[in-house]
């Protein structure tokens, strides 16, 4: 097994053994979505109107809670140094970490989101678009989260800090994803929105690991 795949396999195995970590992130996602009908009242039209934004904003917030899994524990127990000395370039190490993070956070959210959308009365035309925006958007969230998590290794209040620095950078993803779902609900074309999301993903795949690798280099120094 190549070192790149070995890092992914290691993180997946750890995630499976410490399953409550993932479950808590997903539970947060579900609970916060459920708060909106309770706060706004159960009017179906209103919920359908806000469903795309609620689902995406909540998914972003839930993801913020999961980033400390990426490097914080490895940094505290000495595992990060071992990973850095594995011979794998730090940028590829960051990419492997991002892939494992997406498989354990982005992918389960992708599965959960349509179910939650039912509870928010999302327009029936918009389900596939919701899934498509999450499929293109959540990998970007994982990639940016890797950059943020690498930057805050060893910082005080790292969990809040990572949200503060990553959320503004994810605003474009939020805008294009939500407007795509809204367009689909209104029966308009969604191609342009998805192309923008795809372009952001395509640019993030090489650039975010480079930045995260540089950040890890500084974290080890």
């Amino acid at each position, binding site marked *: 097994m190549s*070192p790149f795949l*070995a890092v992914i396999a290691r993180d997946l*195995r*750890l995630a499976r053994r*410490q399953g409550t970590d993932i479950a808590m992130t997903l539970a947060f996602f579900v609970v916060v979505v459920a708060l909106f009908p309770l706060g706004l009242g159960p009017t179906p039209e209103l919920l359908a109107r806000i469903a795309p934004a609620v689902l995406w904003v909540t998914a972003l917030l839930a993801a913020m809670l999961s980033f400390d899994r990426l490097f914080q524990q490895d940094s505290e127990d000495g595992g990060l*140094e071992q990973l850095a000395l594995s*011979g794998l370039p730090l940028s590829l190490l960051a990419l492997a970490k991002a892939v494992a993070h997406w498989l354990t956070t982005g992918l389960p959210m992708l599965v959960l989101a349509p179910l939650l959308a039912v509870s928010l009365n999302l327009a029936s035309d918009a389900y596939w678009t919701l899934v498509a925006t999450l499929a293109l958007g959540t990998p970007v969230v994982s990639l940016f989260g890797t950059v943020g998590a690498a930057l805050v290794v060893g910082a005080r209040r790292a969990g809040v800090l990572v949200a503060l620095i990553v959320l503004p950078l994810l605003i474009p993803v939020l805008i294009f994803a939500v407007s795509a779902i809204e367009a689909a609900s209104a029966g308009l074309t969604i191609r342009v929105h998805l192309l923008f999301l795809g372009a952001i993903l395509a640019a993030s795949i090489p650039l975010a690991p480079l930045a995260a690798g540089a950040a890890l280099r500084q974290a*080890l120094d």
Partner: protein
Amino acid sequence: MTELSPAPGRLTATDIAVARGGRPVFAGLSLSLGPGEALRLAGPNGGGKSTVLRVIADLLTPLKGAVRWNGTATSEDPSAHSRRIAYLGHADALKSALTARENAETMLSVAGRNNGAALDRAFDLLDLQRLSDLPAGWLSAGQRRRVALARVVASGAPLWLLDEPTVGLDAASVSALERAIAGHRAAGGMVIAATHIALDLGPGDATLDPGAFSWTTDVFGEALV
């Protein structure tokens, strides 16, 4: 003994200067280590023993000076340099949720060094076979240290960098470690150990106190008053 891969070579560090958090640690430090040789880093707390190990591992870039392997700067190919090193940090790098054996295996396979037979020998040497299926979270501090050492012993890397390897170890485990070091050196391996106790690295070992190489200026190049 485990075959060493890649082959041992000559490690040199010349005129290294390091500052940590704006604090000058040491300056003008040089060292040289050939196949089969051992070096002990000694000196008081805060003298920079761990820092020397981190510089040699390329985890930390010095302000001045360079580390070379057979004359080539290690920074030219960091990945190749990583593959020469088995590093034991002051933390054990164990995950509580994995067993002792899984811990050693996952880290070794990340480095592309997972070798079942070598790991068996290392677990035998450090008397870990009975513990190998227990979660690392259940082990004592000394037992955890032995698992971390087993990972180094089983790695087959030519250069061992050991940061206070004896912390938490009982007398029997210290002599097991000394046997492992002797075997590694006999196979041509190299060892640099930061330790403040009398760990026997074998015949012909050298000692270096990084604290003796102090800065004469601050990091801005101005005189310290």
